[in-house]
């Protein structure tokens, strides 16, 4: 998905790079690929691919076309295409993706909505249960 040339060459083809030791705060909107290895707070939106490095920390809601996550995200993540969570990834928040790949060791704490219509699906109302006499009954 990520061509090495696009990301190793930094800002080539309009790719934004947030390297280690750099902090970005606010509404970050990009038209090209985004590589995050530093810290980011706020919101992140990109029309193309997002890559989060191992040492990256994102405290934001993220929207991307495709994503490869190897770092930490605290916030909701919405991917319109393929989402790949690598073994060092740590996700705290809801995840929406059309296709999801989770490697062994990845950590997801939140809801996971998948499928072709994941972007348009509204969260269903949860069924209420009542425990009576040690048995659960659906109301």
């Amino acid at each position: 998905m990520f061509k090495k040339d696009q990301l190793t060459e930094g800002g080539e083809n309009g790719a934004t790079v947030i390297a280690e030791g750099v902090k970005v705060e606010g509404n970050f909107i990009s038209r090209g690929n985004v590589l995050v290895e530093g810290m980011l707070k706020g919101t992140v939106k990109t029309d193309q691919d997002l890559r989060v490095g191992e040492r990256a920390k994102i405290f934001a809601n993220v929207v991307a076309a495709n994503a490869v996550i190897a770092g930490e995200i605290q916030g909701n993540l919405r991917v319109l295409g393929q989402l790949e969570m690598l073994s060092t990834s740590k996700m705290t928040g809801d995840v929406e993706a059309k296709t999801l790949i989770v490697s062994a060791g990845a950590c997801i704490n939140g809801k996971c909505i998948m499928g072709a219509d994941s972007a348009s699906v509204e969260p269903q109302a949860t069924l209420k249960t009542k425990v009576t006499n040690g048995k659960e009954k659906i109301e």
Partner: protein
Amino acid sequence: MEKKKLNDGVRVARIRQAQAPKKPVDPDEFKKILTLRRSNRIIREVTVPTYSYIYDPEVQDKKYLKDLTLIENRLTDLGLHGRIHRLSRFKNLKEIIEDDVKSGAKTVVIFGNDETIRKALGICPGKELTFAIIPFGEKNTIAKLLGVGDCFEACQALSARLTYSIDLGVSNGQFFFSSLKIPHCKAEIICDGNFAVSAYQDRDIEILNFHVPKNEDDKLDFTPNPTDGELDLVVRKFNKLSIFGGWRHMFSRVGRDSVFFFKEANVVSRDQVTMFLDGRKTYQQNPKIEVIPNALKLIVGKNRLI
């Protein structure tokens, strides 16, 4: 009734004259005649050259005399006549260019190296001027990037007149052509009013329109585009002290450069910011940095690298 008809006819004729498209004026590149008329008589005809040649003080050195003569002859053969200005301490480059623009010059040809080019290109943007470069002396990286690395190539490019529009950066009213550097920046930079960029440690920050490498080691991980209508904010890699590799490689850059794209940025800092605009040191308080898209027209060669 007849009078009314006549009046209507006159009104229609006047409206048609006002709506008639004006014929475009074709400027003569070699000759512009100024006429002064008093009582229907032509009093004076003055020919104004449309080329303005600016010679750097270094170019006027004896070692370049032979090459300079050859180029002047070549330009004469090509029919590219113009007024020559020899820069010195007593001559102001800005005033020279402004005077030539007032008198009708359309092309400014700079004889010199990177420093002279940077000084000239930061002057008088927004006016309909085309700049050309004929490289002389050492450090002619800008000329090589524009495809006019050789004097004679530059003459050919000038006669071919292949123009290229390039963006220009401005910081609190001061223009820069290639880069704006803020060494050891502790300030926060707010880009397009949307997000703020800061670094944990002191880093060198460069705002690039056009990267002119100082030496072989001065490389970027990407190639800035001077025609995209945006400036590139680069937070350079961290300088790490290294014992290995000798004294030349004592400070090595570790990690990766951060790259952002913006059209307008504000540098927020308590103190005055020390910055280098195309090598000129300046101090500004909370500078506002913007891009002016397609502000400069340059004559380029076929082998340009931008």
